[in-house]
């Protein structure tokens, strides 16, 4: 497996979707390739950091609308 091939299989690898034989080639390659090891680590880090993105807060108008919706529902 070449580095160029490996980088396109990273997501399949992380998702556990590589066929066994391909996964073995993938891991063999990793054990001898610092560049690809770093690439995989960077992808993992990217996923972790993306997960920390926060949504913008709700506007007061949205909060009011939703609270009214809740209170109306409670009355029924």
């Amino acid at each position: 497996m070449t580095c160029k091939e490996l980088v396109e299989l990273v997501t399949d690898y992380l998702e556990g979707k590589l066929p066994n034989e391909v996964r073995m080639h993938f891991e063999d390659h990793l054990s001898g390739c610092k560049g690809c090891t770093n690439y995989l680590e960077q992808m993992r880090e990217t996923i972790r950091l993306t997960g920390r993105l926060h949504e913008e807060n709700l506007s007061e108008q949205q909060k009011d609308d939703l609270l009214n919706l809740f209170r109306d529902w409670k009355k029924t």
Partner: protein
Amino acid sequence: MILPDWWDASRLVFELFAWLVVGTDKIALSRPAHQQIIQAVGMKESMHTSEVEASLINSLRAGDESAFTWLVEQYHTALVRLAHLFVRDSSIAEELAQETWLAVLQGLNNFEGRSSLKTWIFTILTNKAKTRSRREQRSIVFSDLEHGTSDSPTVDPERFNPPTADRSPNHWMAESKPGSWAGIPEDLLVSQEVMNLIGQAVAALPENQRIVITLRDLYDLSSDEVCNILTISETNQRVLLHRARARVRQSLEKYFQPEN
């Protein structure tokens, strides 16, 4: 009276214990304890924890406004954003999200917990949005998603030795090998600047990739859940996710290691 910290902690432990032993339907957690549990397990984990969900659902059924506020703060913006992919008009997207909340409240008694609460809410929204978009005859999203499978490389081919090279063809060129990020301090990794950078990178993605990475990596839905919500194949989902993550990674790499 000011109570020491251990007071809160021990009360929380006691309540959790009582709750596990007696069961969620028989004992209502006091509101601070409920919030502490959510904080203690973290937002994402909390939504995977069926016990916490059960407690949340019980609170909602009992008409607890703080439970509703918490839920809405977690997901309303996400719902509006998701709806916006199906309908052009922002006010309709907002309306669809509101209709979803009403459907959630009205359906609480029938919710059996076969999926997570989050998936259930997102699915209600998607179904509503799809119906609405059919009415508006805007079905761009589906076709875009199905056309997401282009096979252009996600890493600049210039960074690899040419296929005809004598030594290590298609392997990283010595000068453009990815570096390790292990030495970057956590403070910098999670800094506002980096978060903004990721936000911009995600925002700049094609619509189909953006929605997939948002659902998977921001809202932490599983691959199955995303495929169901968007009615796309698993392979297609994975390709879109791969391309999206690769683009975000590239932005981060440019920032951390501009020399590459």
